[in-house]
């Protein structure tokens, strides 16, 4: 489990790791659900030709989404999509993309 890397060593690790799964299951978060929408085009298997955003730097993702949103970066479809998200949602996406591997 990914979370175990951030936790203390020893028995606590295995106990927490076991506990993490149902906890992860129980609180599929807004950021996780929101960002999963992006995976339809930005495959997390790096399949297809859309930019791969797995592990993408958080601040870069946020700044680029904002640039698409305000039109200062011109894309084909991303301007139309980025305008659909609030700043808070863009931050949630940045957090989540940076976290996944």
């Amino acid at each position, binding site marked *: 489990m990914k979370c175990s890397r951030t936790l203390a060593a020893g028995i606590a690790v295995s*106990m927490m790791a*076991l*506990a993490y*799964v*149902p*906890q*992860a*299951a*129980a*609180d*599929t*978060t*807004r950021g*996780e*659900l*929101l960002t*999963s*929408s*992006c*995976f*339809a*085009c*930005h*495959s*997390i*298997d790096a*399949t*297809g*030709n*859309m930019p791969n955003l797995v592990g993408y730097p958080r601040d870069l993702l946020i700044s680029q989404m904002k640039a698409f949103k305000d039109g200062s970066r011109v894309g*084909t*479809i991303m301007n*139309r*999509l*980025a*305008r*659909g*998200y609030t700043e808070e*949602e863009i931050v949630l996406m940045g957090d989540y993309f940076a976290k996944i591997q």
Partner: protein
Amino acid sequence: MTNFSRRNFLKAVGIGGAATVAGFGCAPNGRATASRNGHVVVVGGGSGGATAAKYLKRFSPDMDVTLIEPTATYYTCYGSNWVLGGHAQMDDIAQTYDALQSRHGVKVVQDSVTSIDPARRTVRTAGGDTINYDRLIVSPGIDFRYDAVPGITAADSERIPHAWKAGEQTVILRRQLEAMPDGGVFVMVAPGNPFRCPPGPYERASMVAHYFKQAKPRSKIIILDNKENFSKQGLFIAGWEQHYGDMIEWVPSSRGGQVEEIDVANLTAISDGGFNVFKADVLNYVPPQTAGKIAMDTGLAGDGFWCPVNQMTFESTIHPGIYVIGDSSVAGAMPKSGHSANNQAKVAAAAIIRDLAGLEPVAPSTANTCYSLITPDHAISVAAVYAYQDGTMAGVEGAGGVSPADAPASVRQMEAVYTKGWYDGITADIWG
């Protein structure tokens, strides 16, 4: 977020290492085995169902997930127009369930569900199994209303294919187009709203025109439409004029496009009380549609043709514990598309996981992206972002829309590159 409860913590520790082998929902007698996170059965392995099964496991690895799908190889409807245009082969739109099973731990059952008992929370299959569920996801796509227009029945679909579910039907229509002589007429009857893949008929006309232009340039394409306007209309019509001259003729309902009868023997569509008669060399009748058969049979559409759901979770408003996603559902402003189904599947998966854990759903956010090819190097797109507002999935104001009308050829070409990228990406997200 609350931390794990003491009870869950003890439960998790108690089960310990055995948890990962606690195993799958379906014992030989069809009874669901006990599982920490419940047993979710998914009916239908298309874009909605396969995504749901995969994301239930992604969001909740200990969930027992069974996907029931009759075919071993699924042909996506998206991309099937490219096959009709000779721009892709059937193998290019074929998907299988190997990765769902081996990589993601979904139990894939090749069978078809014949009935659902919402009270007992069981499904029965054609193979004779009865499978229990804690939550059920129903994603059966569409069925056809062949009773809507006299003269044609489902039995005629070999002579007059719909090709609106990909597979054998796609092959039949492609063969008919190949056999058609130069100078022939391809007539497509497009359904009224709502229907699967709103830009589909017009991309199909484009791709058939692409084929005709190379192989039989004197041929004609007539679209008889049961509506007055259509998706990406301005971009399609401009693209047709640019690439195909007057090869494609679109006939809206007010000008004879509302077909009232089909003469199967003579491959003829008739409208305006017999005033307009369209004789085809190849006739492609796409009937009006309903929710998939199993959804209709289970009463999930109530008195209507589509299944009402709580659009925050996609749980049926008719049968609690059953979630209806994809084309079969009523999903506010979201179109009936594979991309919509994929996004709705994630919403339903998250809602089920949270519900089984006793948590409220999170606010759903979804998107739809749809590319259409006018030629293999000229694509157009429509996109939208949806949020839950006032009980419905509504388009977020100020977002979305179609490709710019004045875009240069380089942008059309870039969108054609992304069309293929979209296909590769979304099919990896669903079946990969």
